[in-house]
Protein backbone atom coordinates (compact mmCIF):
# COMPACT_ATOMS: atom_id res chain seq x y z
CA UNK A 1 0.00 0.00 0.00
CA UNK A 2 2.67 2.46 1.11
CA UNK A 3 4.80 1.30 -1.77
CA UNK A 4 2.03 1.94 -4.26
CA UNK A 5 1.47 5.39 -2.83
CA UNK A 6 5.17 6.08 -3.07
CA UNK A 7 5.22 4.90 -6.66
CA UNK A 8 2.26 7.14 -7.43
CA UNK A 9 4.00 10.08 -5.80
CA UNK A 10 7.19 9.36 -7.68
CA UNK A 11 5.50 9.24 -11.03
CA UNK A 12 3.63 12.42 -10.14
CA UNK A 13 6.91 14.13 -9.33
CA UNK A 14 8.50 12.80 -12.50
CA UNK A 15 5.56 14.11 -14.49
CA UNK A 16 5.80 17.57 -12.93
CA UNK A 17 9.53 17.64 -13.53
CA UNK A 18 8.98 16.73 -17.17
CA UNK A 19 6.34 19.40 -17.52
CA UNK A 20 8.73 21.91 -16.01
CA UNK A 21 11.51 20.90 -18.38
CA UNK A 22 9.12 21.16 -21.32
CA UNK A 23 8.19 24.69 -20.31
CA UNK A 24 11.80 25.71 -19.81
CA UNK A 25 12.59 24.27 -23.22
CA UNK A 26 9.79 26.32 -24.76
CA UNK A 27 11.14 29.49 -23.15
CA UNK A 28 14.63 28.61 -24.32
CA UNK A 29 13.43 28.11 -27.87
CA UNK A 30 11.43 31.34 -27.89
CA UNK A 31 14.50 33.20 -26.69
CA UNK A 32 16.20 32.00 -29.86
CA UNK A 33 13.68 33.61 -32.21
CA UNK A 34 15.55 36.92 -32.69
CA UNK A 35 18.77 35.08 -33.48
CA UNK A 36 16.91 32.88 -35.94
CA UNK A 37 15.43 35.85 -37.76
CA UNK A 38 18.96 36.95 -38.51
CA UNK A 39 19.56 33.61 -40.26
CA UNK A 40 16.39 33.00 -42.26
CA UNK A 41 18.11 30.15 -44.10
CA UNK A 42 17.84 27.91 -41.06
CA UNK A 43 14.09 28.45 -41.00
CA UNK A 44 13.75 27.88 -44.73
CA UNK A 45 15.56 24.55 -44.48
CA UNK A 46 13.24 23.43 -41.72
CA UNK A 47 10.14 24.69 -43.51
CA UNK A 48 11.21 22.38 -46.29
CA UNK A 49 11.80 19.29 -44.20
CA UNK A 50 8.95 19.82 -41.76
CA UNK A 51 6.40 21.36 -44.10
CA UNK A 52 7.08 20.63 -47.73
CA UNK A 53 7.90 16.97 -47.20
CA UNK A 54 4.56 16.53 -45.44
CA UNK A 55 2.60 18.01 -48.35
CA UNK A 56 2.16 14.80 -50.30
CA UNK A 57 0.54 12.77 -47.53
CA UNK A 58 -1.66 15.75 -46.61
CA UNK A 59 -2.74 16.30 -50.20
CA UNK A 60 -3.61 12.68 -50.88
CA UNK A 61 -5.46 12.31 -47.59
CA UNK A 62 -7.32 15.57 -48.17
CA UNK A 63 -8.63 14.45 -51.53
CA UNK A 64 -9.79 11.10 -50.23
CA UNK A 65 -11.39 12.46 -47.08
CA UNK A 66 -13.23 15.00 -49.26
CA UNK A 67 -14.42 12.27 -51.60
CA UNK A 68 -15.74 10.20 -48.71
CA UNK A 69 -17.48 13.25 -47.31
CA UNK A 70 -19.03 13.82 -50.73
CA UNK A 71 -20.37 10.27 -50.85
CA UNK A 72 -21.65 10.12 -47.29
CA UNK A 73 -23.02 13.63 -47.41
CA UNK A 74 -24.88 12.97 -50.64
CA UNK A 75 -26.32 9.75 -49.22
CA UNK A 76 -27.79 11.51 -46.19
CA UNK A 77 -28.70 14.85 -47.75
CA UNK A 78 -30.47 13.27 -50.71
CA UNK A 79 -32.89 11.58 -48.31
CA UNK A 80 -34.10 15.03 -47.36
CA UNK A 81 -33.85 16.32 -50.87
CA UNK A 82 -31.10 18.68 -49.77
CA UNK A 83 -28.31 17.63 -52.14
CA UNK A 84 -27.90 21.27 -53.04
CA UNK A 85 -26.27 21.91 -49.68
CA UNK A 86 -23.65 19.22 -50.23
CA UNK A 87 -20.97 21.87 -50.77
CA UNK A 88 -21.74 23.51 -47.46
CA UNK A 89 -21.63 20.24 -45.61
CA UNK A 90 -18.32 19.17 -47.12
CA UNK A 91 -16.67 22.54 -46.64
CA UNK A 92 -17.93 23.07 -43.09
CA UNK A 93 -16.83 19.67 -41.84
CA UNK A 94 -13.42 20.13 -43.40
CA UNK A 95 -12.71 23.68 -42.38
CA UNK A 96 -14.04 23.42 -38.85
CA UNK A 97 -13.04 19.92 -37.84
CA UNK A 98 -11.42 17.44 -40.17
CA UNK A 99 -8.93 19.79 -41.77
CA UNK A 100 -7.16 20.85 -38.58
CA UNK A 101 -7.55 17.54 -36.75
CA UNK A 102 -6.62 15.05 -39.46
CA UNK A 103 -3.78 17.30 -40.61
CA UNK A 104 -2.44 17.42 -37.05
CA UNK A 105 -2.66 13.64 -36.68
CA UNK A 106 -0.89 13.08 -39.99
CA UNK A 107 1.65 15.76 -39.09
CA UNK A 108 2.45 14.01 -35.81
CA UNK A 109 2.98 10.75 -37.65
CA UNK A 110 5.02 12.15 -40.51
CA UNK A 111 6.86 15.27 -39.33
CA UNK A 112 6.63 14.93 -35.54
CA UNK A 113 8.15 11.49 -35.36
CA UNK A 114 10.90 12.54 -37.77
CA UNK A 115 11.67 15.59 -35.62
CA UNK A 116 11.90 13.51 -32.45
CA UNK A 117 14.11 10.91 -34.07
CA UNK A 118 16.41 13.50 -35.60
CA UNK A 119 16.85 15.49 -32.40
CA UNK A 120 17.16 12.34 -30.31
CA UNK A 121 19.89 11.03 -32.59
CA UNK A 122 21.69 14.36 -32.50
CA UNK A 123 21.62 14.09 -28.75
CA UNK A 124 22.78 10.50 -28.57
CA UNK A 125 25.64 11.10 -30.99
CA UNK A 126 26.72 14.11 -28.90
CA UNK A 127 26.10 16.55 -31.73
CA UNK A 128 24.18 18.79 -29.36
CA UNK A 129 26.98 18.66 -26.79
CA UNK A 130 29.41 19.35 -29.59
CA UNK A 131 27.52 22.51 -30.52
CA UNK A 132 27.51 23.61 -26.91
CA UNK A 133 31.26 23.20 -26.68
CA UNK A 134 31.60 25.24 -29.87
CA UNK A 135 29.76 27.99 -27.98
CA UNK A 136 26.66 27.55 -30.11
CA UNK A 137 23.39 27.25 -28.23
CA UNK A 138 21.77 24.09 -29.59
CA UNK A 139 18.32 25.18 -28.42
CA UNK A 140 18.51 28.33 -30.48
CA UNK A 141 20.41 26.87 -33.35
CA UNK A 142 18.74 23.50 -33.80
CA UNK A 143 15.39 23.62 -32.04
CA UNK A 144 14.00 27.12 -32.59
CA UNK A 145 13.89 26.91 -36.41
CA UNK A 146 12.14 23.55 -36.15
CA UNK A 147 9.55 24.89 -33.73
CA UNK A 148 8.75 27.93 -35.85
CA UNK A 149 8.68 25.85 -39.01
CA UNK A 150 6.18 23.48 -37.41
CA UNK A 151 3.97 26.30 -36.19
CA UNK A 152 3.98 27.99 -39.59
CA UNK A 153 3.47 24.79 -41.54
CA UNK A 154 0.50 23.40 -39.69
CA UNK A 155 -2.14 26.03 -40.66
CA UNK A 156 -0.91 26.02 -44.24
CA UNK A 157 -1.08 22.25 -44.44
CA UNK A 158 -4.55 22.27 -42.87
CA UNK A 159 -5.71 24.89 -45.37
CA UNK A 160 -4.39 22.76 -48.18
CA UNK A 161 -6.07 19.68 -46.76
CA UNK A 162 -9.41 21.48 -46.60
CA UNK A 163 -9.10 22.95 -50.06
CA UNK A 164 -8.26 19.63 -51.68
CA UNK A 165 -11.02 18.01 -49.66
CA UNK A 166 -13.53 20.48 -51.05
CA UNK A 167 -12.37 19.52 -54.55
CA UNK A 168 -12.62 15.83 -53.62
CA UNK A 169 -16.21 16.33 -52.49
CA UNK A 170 -16.92 18.31 -55.64
CA UNK A 171 -15.51 15.54 -57.82
CA UNK A 172 -17.79 12.93 -56.22
CA UNK A 173 -20.88 15.12 -55.76
CA UNK A 174 -20.84 17.11 -58.96
CA UNK A 175 -18.80 14.86 -61.19
CA UNK A 176 -20.20 11.47 -60.30
CA UNK A 177 -23.52 11.97 -58.50
CA UNK A 178 -24.89 14.84 -60.50
CA UNK A 179 -25.23 17.67 -57.99
CA UNK A 180 -25.45 20.99 -59.80
CA UNK A 181 -22.04 22.60 -60.17
CA UNK A 182 -23.17 26.16 -59.58
CA UNK A 183 -25.20 25.25 -56.53
CA UNK A 184 -22.31 23.37 -54.95
CA UNK A 185 -20.11 26.46 -54.96
CA UNK A 186 -22.80 29.11 -54.47
CA UNK A 187 -24.26 27.46 -51.38
CA UNK A 188 -20.77 27.05 -49.97
CA UNK A 189 -19.98 30.70 -50.59
CA UNK A 190 -23.11 32.00 -48.97
CA UNK A 191 -23.20 29.67 -45.96
CA UNK A 192 -19.60 29.37 -44.83
CA UNK A 193 -18.80 32.19 -42.42
CA UNK A 194 -15.40 33.79 -42.26
CA UNK A 195 -15.21 34.12 -38.47
CA UNK A 196 -17.37 31.21 -37.39
CA UNK A 197 -15.89 28.61 -39.67
CA UNK A 198 -12.64 29.59 -41.25
CA UNK A 199 -11.03 31.63 -38.49
CA UNK A 200 -11.93 29.09 -35.84
CA UNK A 201 -10.40 26.36 -37.97
CA UNK A 202 -7.22 28.37 -38.40
CA UNK A 203 -7.01 28.98 -34.65
CA UNK A 204 -7.31 25.27 -34.06
CA UNK A 205 -4.58 24.40 -36.49
CA UNK A 206 -2.23 27.02 -35.04
CA UNK A 207 -2.79 25.57 -31.57
CA UNK A 208 -2.21 22.06 -32.89
CA UNK A 209 0.91 23.25 -34.66
CA UNK A 210 2.37 24.60 -31.43
CA UNK A 211 1.42 21.53 -29.42
CA UNK A 212 2.51 18.87 -31.90
CA UNK A 213 5.85 20.50 -32.67
CA UNK A 214 6.52 21.23 -29.01
CA UNK A 215 5.83 17.63 -28.04
CA UNK A 216 7.98 16.28 -30.87
CA UNK A 217 10.93 18.53 -30.07
CA UNK A 218 10.68 17.98 -26.34
CA UNK A 219 10.53 14.20 -26.67
CA UNK A 220 13.60 14.20 -28.87
CA UNK A 221 15.52 16.63 -26.68
CA UNK A 222 14.59 14.92 -23.43
CA UNK A 223 15.10 11.34 -24.58
CA UNK A 224 17.46 8.85 -23.05
CA UNK A 225 20.42 9.13 -25.45
CA UNK A 226 20.46 5.54 -26.68
CA UNK A 227 18.90 3.78 -29.66
CA UNK A 228 16.16 2.47 -27.44
CA UNK A 229 15.56 5.88 -25.92
CA UNK A 230 15.23 7.46 -29.36
CA UNK A 231 12.76 4.85 -30.55
CA UNK A 232 10.68 5.30 -27.43
CA UNK A 233 10.73 9.05 -27.86
CA UNK A 234 9.44 8.67 -31.41
CA UNK A 235 6.59 6.46 -30.31
CA UNK A 236 5.71 8.77 -27.45
CA UNK A 237 5.63 11.74 -29.80
CA UNK A 238 2.96 10.13 -31.96
CA UNK A 239 0.89 8.90 -29.00
CA UNK A 240 1.08 12.09 -26.96
CA UNK A 241 0.48 14.35 -29.96
CA UNK A 242 -2.56 12.38 -31.10
CA UNK A 243 -4.11 12.38 -27.65
CA UNK A 244 -3.33 16.06 -27.16
CA UNK A 245 -4.84 16.96 -30.51
CA UNK A 246 -8.06 15.04 -29.93
CA UNK A 247 -8.44 16.32 -26.37
CA UNK A 248 -7.68 19.92 -27.31
CA UNK A 249 -10.03 19.69 -30.25
CA UNK A 250 -12.89 18.97 -27.92
CA UNK A 251 -11.92 21.79 -25.58
CA UNK A 252 -11.47 24.29 -28.39
CA UNK A 253 -14.69 23.31 -30.10
CA UNK A 254 -16.60 23.64 -26.84
CA UNK A 255 -15.06 27.07 -26.26
CA UNK A 256 -15.84 28.23 -29.77
CA UNK A 257 -19.47 27.10 -29.62
CA UNK A 258 -19.59 28.64 -26.19
Amino acid at each position, binding site marked *: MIRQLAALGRSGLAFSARLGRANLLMLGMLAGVPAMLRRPRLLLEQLFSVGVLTVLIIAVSGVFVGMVLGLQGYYILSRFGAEATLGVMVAASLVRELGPVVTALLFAGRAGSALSAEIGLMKS*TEQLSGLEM*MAVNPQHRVLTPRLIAGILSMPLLAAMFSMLGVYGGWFVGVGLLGVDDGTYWAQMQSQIDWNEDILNGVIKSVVFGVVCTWIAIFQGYDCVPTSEGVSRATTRTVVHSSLAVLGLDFVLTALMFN
Partner: protein
Amino acid sequence: MNHAAAPNDTLVRIRGLTFNRGSRVIFDGVDIDIPRGGVTAIMGPSGTGKTTLLKLIGGQLRPDAGTIEVDGLNVHELSTRELYELRMRMGMLFQTGALLTDLSVFDNVAYPLREHTRLNASMIRKLVLMKLEAVGLRGARRLMPGELSGGMARRVAMARAIALDPMMIMYDEPFTGQDPISMGVLVQLIRRLNDAAGVSSIVVSHDVQETLSIADLVYVISGGKVIESGAPDQLRSSEGASTRQFIGGLPDGPVPFHYPSAGLTADLFGDGA
Protein backbone atom coordinates in the same frame (compact mmCIF):
# COMPACT_ATOMS: atom_id res chain seq x y z
CA MET B 1 51.39 15.72 -5.82
CA ASN B 2 54.65 17.29 -6.79
CA HIS B 3 55.00 19.23 -9.99
CA ALA B 4 52.05 21.51 -9.18
CA ALA B 5 52.79 24.59 -11.23
CA ALA B 6 52.98 28.06 -9.72
CA PRO B 7 49.51 29.56 -9.36
CA ASN B 8 49.71 32.13 -12.14
CA ASP B 9 50.92 29.50 -14.56
CA THR B 10 47.89 27.38 -13.90
CA LEU B 11 45.26 27.47 -16.61
CA VAL B 12 42.80 25.05 -15.08
CA ARG B 13 42.61 24.73 -11.33
CA ILE B 14 40.38 22.03 -9.90
CA ARG B 15 39.83 21.92 -6.16
CA GLY B 16 37.90 19.38 -4.15
CA LEU B 17 35.92 18.23 -7.16
CA THR B 18 33.12 15.85 -6.22
CA PHE B 19 30.70 14.47 -8.75
CA ASN B 20 28.12 11.70 -8.56
CA ARG B 21 26.08 9.92 -11.17
CA GLY B 22 23.04 8.80 -9.25
CA SER B 23 24.43 6.91 -6.30
CA ARG B 24 27.75 6.28 -8.06
CA VAL B 25 30.64 8.43 -6.98
CA ILE B 26 32.66 9.42 -10.04
CA PHE B 27 34.95 11.98 -8.39
CA ASP B 28 35.62 12.24 -4.72
CA GLY B 29 37.56 15.35 -3.81
CA VAL B 30 39.90 15.60 -6.78
CA ASP B 31 42.52 18.35 -7.06
CA ILE B 32 44.11 18.90 -10.45
CA ASP B 33 46.25 21.72 -11.81
CA ILE B 34 46.67 22.04 -15.54
CA PRO B 35 49.62 24.26 -16.33
CA ARG B 36 49.47 26.87 -19.05
CA GLY B 37 51.30 26.07 -22.24
CA GLY B 38 51.94 22.40 -21.57
CA VAL B 39 50.51 19.07 -22.57
CA THR B 40 48.77 17.49 -19.63
CA ALA B 41 47.69 13.90 -19.90
CA ILE B 42 44.83 12.42 -17.95
CA MET B 43 45.04 8.68 -17.80
CA GLY B 44 43.03 6.03 -16.10
CA PRO B 45 41.02 2.93 -16.73
CA SER B 46 37.89 2.90 -18.81
CA GLY B 47 34.89 4.30 -16.98
CA THR B 48 36.74 6.27 -14.31
CA GLY B 49 35.32 9.55 -15.52
CA LYS B 50 37.90 11.07 -17.84
CA THR B 51 35.27 12.19 -20.32
CA THR B 52 33.17 13.37 -17.40
CA LEU B 53 36.12 15.47 -16.20
CA LEU B 54 36.42 17.18 -19.58
CA LYS B 55 32.69 17.90 -19.61
CA LEU B 56 32.97 19.37 -16.13
CA ILE B 57 35.80 21.62 -17.28
CA GLY B 58 33.76 22.65 -20.31
CA GLY B 59 30.82 23.55 -18.10
CA GLN B 60 28.47 20.95 -19.54
CA LEU B 61 28.08 19.21 -16.20
CA ARG B 62 27.90 20.78 -12.76
CA PRO B 63 30.03 19.42 -9.92
CA ASP B 64 28.28 18.43 -6.71
CA ALA B 65 31.04 20.13 -4.73
CA GLY B 66 34.34 21.82 -5.41
CA THR B 67 35.40 24.43 -7.93
CA ILE B 68 36.81 24.46 -11.42
CA GLU B 69 38.60 27.57 -12.58
CA VAL B 70 39.67 28.06 -16.16
CA ASP B 71 41.91 31.04 -16.84
CA GLY B 72 40.89 32.50 -13.49
CA LEU B 73 37.15 32.14 -14.14
CA ASN B 74 35.00 29.84 -12.05
CA VAL B 75 33.32 27.89 -14.81
CA HIS B 76 30.16 27.12 -12.89
CA GLU B 77 29.49 30.65 -11.72
CA LEU B 78 29.62 32.26 -15.14
CA SER B 79 26.54 33.57 -16.88
CA THR B 80 25.55 31.77 -20.06
CA ARG B 81 27.08 34.50 -22.16
CA GLU B 82 30.36 34.42 -20.26
CA LEU B 83 30.43 30.64 -20.41
CA TYR B 84 29.96 30.75 -24.18
CA GLU B 85 32.73 33.32 -24.48
CA LEU B 86 35.00 31.05 -22.50
CA ARG B 87 34.06 28.06 -24.63
CA MET B 88 35.08 29.95 -27.75
CA ARG B 89 38.58 29.83 -26.35
CA MET B 90 38.37 26.10 -25.68
CA GLY B 91 38.47 23.40 -28.32
CA MET B 92 37.19 19.99 -27.55
CA LEU B 93 37.63 16.78 -29.45
CA PHE B 94 34.79 14.48 -28.44
CA GLN B 95 35.44 10.82 -27.93
CA THR B 96 32.73 10.06 -30.49
CA GLY B 97 33.72 12.86 -32.87
CA ALA B 98 30.31 14.52 -32.57
CA LEU B 99 30.40 15.76 -36.17
CA LEU B 100 27.21 17.30 -37.49
CA THR B 101 25.88 14.54 -39.72
CA ASP B 102 24.01 16.79 -42.13
CA LEU B 103 27.10 18.79 -43.06
CA SER B 104 30.07 17.76 -45.17
CA VAL B 105 33.57 17.47 -43.74
CA PHE B 106 34.40 20.92 -45.06
CA ASP B 107 31.30 22.52 -43.59
CA ASN B 108 31.86 20.82 -40.26
CA VAL B 109 35.31 22.33 -39.93
CA ALA B 110 34.06 25.66 -41.24
CA TYR B 111 31.15 25.68 -38.79
CA PRO B 112 32.83 27.37 -35.79
CA LEU B 113 34.52 29.87 -38.12
CA ARG B 114 31.25 30.81 -39.78
CA GLU B 115 29.54 30.94 -36.44
CA HIS B 116 32.01 33.08 -34.53
CA THR B 117 34.04 35.09 -37.01
CA ARG B 118 33.26 37.56 -39.75
CA LEU B 119 35.83 36.17 -42.14
CA ASN B 120 34.85 36.09 -45.79
CA ALA B 121 34.29 32.88 -47.69
CA SER B 122 37.70 32.66 -49.32
CA MET B 123 39.47 33.23 -46.01
CA ILE B 124 37.37 30.54 -44.35
CA ARG B 125 38.13 28.20 -47.21
CA LYS B 126 41.86 28.73 -46.78
CA LEU B 127 41.70 28.19 -43.03
CA VAL B 128 39.57 25.07 -43.33
CA LEU B 129 41.85 23.56 -45.94
CA MET B 130 44.86 24.28 -43.75
CA LYS B 131 43.26 22.59 -40.75
CA LEU B 132 42.23 19.61 -42.85
CA GLU B 133 45.72 19.43 -44.33
CA ALA B 134 47.12 19.25 -40.80
CA VAL B 135 45.10 16.12 -40.10
CA GLY B 136 45.73 14.67 -43.56
CA LEU B 137 42.17 14.87 -44.81
CA ARG B 138 42.19 17.76 -47.26
CA GLY B 139 41.18 15.34 -49.99
CA ALA B 140 38.18 14.13 -48.01
CA ARG B 141 36.54 17.50 -47.66
CA ARG B 142 33.50 16.69 -49.79
CA LEU B 143 32.63 13.50 -47.93
CA MET B 144 29.77 13.37 -45.47
CA PRO B 145 30.43 12.19 -41.89
CA GLY B 146 28.57 8.97 -42.65
CA GLU B 147 31.15 8.16 -45.32
CA LEU B 148 34.13 8.42 -42.98
CA SER B 149 35.81 5.70 -41.00
CA GLY B 150 35.93 6.09 -37.22
CA GLY B 151 39.55 7.22 -37.26
CA MET B 152 38.92 9.71 -40.08
CA ALA B 153 35.89 11.14 -38.31
CA ARG B 154 37.99 11.74 -35.25
CA ARG B 155 40.64 13.53 -37.26
CA VAL B 156 37.97 15.76 -38.82
CA ALA B 157 36.67 16.48 -35.34
CA MET B 158 40.19 17.39 -34.37
CA ALA B 159 40.45 19.81 -37.28
CA ARG B 160 37.20 21.35 -36.10
CA ALA B 161 38.40 21.60 -32.52
CA ILE B 162 41.43 23.62 -33.60
CA ALA B 163 39.59 25.72 -36.17
CA LEU B 164 39.26 28.78 -33.96
CA ASP B 165 42.85 28.52 -32.67
CA PRO B 166 41.71 28.16 -29.07
CA MET B 167 43.89 28.81 -26.04
CA MET B 168 43.17 25.36 -24.69
CA ILE B 169 42.35 22.13 -26.48
CA MET B 170 40.86 19.08 -24.81
CA TYR B 171 41.42 15.84 -26.66
CA ASP B 172 39.27 12.92 -25.60
CA GLU B 173 40.99 9.76 -26.85
CA PRO B 174 42.57 11.32 -29.94
CA PHE B 175 44.52 8.18 -30.85
CA THR B 176 41.78 5.59 -30.71
CA GLY B 177 41.19 3.95 -34.06
CA GLN B 178 44.28 5.45 -35.73
CA ASP B 179 46.77 3.42 -37.67
CA PRO B 180 50.43 3.75 -36.60
CA ILE B 181 51.16 6.37 -39.24
CA SER B 182 48.32 8.74 -38.45
CA MET B 183 48.92 8.09 -34.78
CA GLY B 184 52.46 9.36 -35.17
CA VAL B 185 51.22 12.36 -37.14
CA LEU B 186 48.61 13.18 -34.53
CA VAL B 187 51.10 12.92 -31.70
CA GLN B 188 53.34 15.40 -33.48
CA LEU B 189 50.38 17.60 -34.38
CA ILE B 190 49.27 17.89 -30.78
CA ARG B 191 52.79 18.73 -29.69
CA ARG B 192 53.28 21.21 -32.53
CA LEU B 193 49.99 23.00 -31.93
CA ASN B 194 50.87 23.19 -28.31
CA ASP B 195 54.32 24.63 -28.80
CA ALA B 196 53.70 26.86 -31.80
CA ALA B 197 50.81 28.91 -30.49
CA GLY B 198 51.32 28.62 -26.76
CA VAL B 199 48.19 26.53 -26.56
CA SER B 200 47.55 24.36 -23.53
CA SER B 201 46.45 20.81 -24.18
CA ILE B 202 44.67 18.21 -22.14
CA VAL B 203 44.97 14.74 -23.58
CA VAL B 204 42.83 11.90 -22.33
CA SER B 205 44.13 8.61 -23.58
CA HIS B 206 44.70 4.93 -23.00
CA ASP B 207 47.65 4.84 -25.33
CA VAL B 208 50.32 4.93 -22.67
CA GLN B 209 53.47 5.17 -24.74
CA GLU B 210 52.16 7.82 -27.14
CA THR B 211 50.73 9.84 -24.33
CA LEU B 212 53.82 9.68 -22.18
CA SER B 213 55.90 10.67 -25.17
CA ILE B 214 54.14 14.02 -25.60
CA ALA B 215 52.93 14.85 -22.10
CA ASP B 216 54.68 17.30 -19.80
CA LEU B 217 52.57 16.29 -16.85
CA VAL B 218 50.48 13.20 -16.25
CA TYR B 219 47.59 12.56 -13.88
CA VAL B 220 46.43 9.02 -13.29
CA ILE B 221 42.86 8.83 -12.05
CA SER B 222 41.23 5.76 -10.63
CA GLY B 223 38.35 5.12 -8.29
CA GLY B 224 37.38 8.78 -8.11
CA LYS B 225 40.82 9.92 -6.94
CA VAL B 226 44.07 11.08 -8.43
CA ILE B 227 46.33 8.17 -7.62
CA GLU B 228 49.50 9.48 -9.17
CA SER B 229 50.76 12.60 -10.86
CA GLY B 230 54.04 13.84 -12.18
CA ALA B 231 56.28 14.04 -15.19
CA PRO B 232 56.25 11.02 -17.53
CA ASP B 233 59.68 9.87 -16.30
CA GLN B 234 58.51 9.94 -12.72
CA LEU B 235 55.55 7.77 -13.64
CA ARG B 236 57.69 5.33 -15.55
CA SER B 237 59.77 4.81 -12.43
CA SER B 238 56.80 4.90 -10.11
CA GLU B 239 56.66 2.44 -7.27
CA GLY B 240 52.87 2.36 -7.18
CA ALA B 241 51.69 -1.09 -8.17
CA SER B 242 48.64 0.06 -10.09
CA THR B 243 50.52 2.83 -11.81
CA ARG B 244 53.18 0.33 -12.85
CA GLN B 245 50.52 -1.99 -14.16
CA PHE B 246 48.90 0.82 -16.07
CA ILE B 247 52.09 2.24 -17.50
CA GLY B 248 53.33 -1.25 -18.18
CA GLY B 249 50.78 -1.64 -20.92
CA LEU B 250 47.90 -3.45 -19.28
CA PRO B 251 45.42 -0.61 -19.21
CA ASP B 252 42.39 -2.82 -19.60
CA GLY B 253 43.74 -5.94 -17.99
CA PRO B 254 43.74 -5.95 -14.23
CA VAL B 255 40.48 -6.25 -12.40
CA PRO B 256 41.29 -3.58 -9.79
CA PHE B 257 41.16 -0.95 -12.47
CA HIS B 258 37.76 -2.02 -13.64
CA TYR B 259 36.07 -2.68 -10.37
CA PRO B 260 37.75 -0.57 -7.71
CA SER B 261 36.57 -1.75 -4.32
CA ALA B 262 36.76 0.31 -1.17
CA GLY B 263 39.62 -1.69 0.28
CA LEU B 264 41.65 -1.48 -2.86
CA THR B 265 41.14 2.24 -3.24
CA ALA B 266 42.58 2.77 0.20
CA ASP B 267 45.44 0.54 -0.81
CA LEU B 268 46.12 2.55 -3.92
CA PHE B 269 46.22 5.68 -1.87
CA GLY B 270 48.90 4.35 0.39
CA ASP B 271 51.13 3.80 -2.62
CA GLY B 272 50.44 6.54 -5.04
CA ALA B 273 49.32 9.92 -3.86
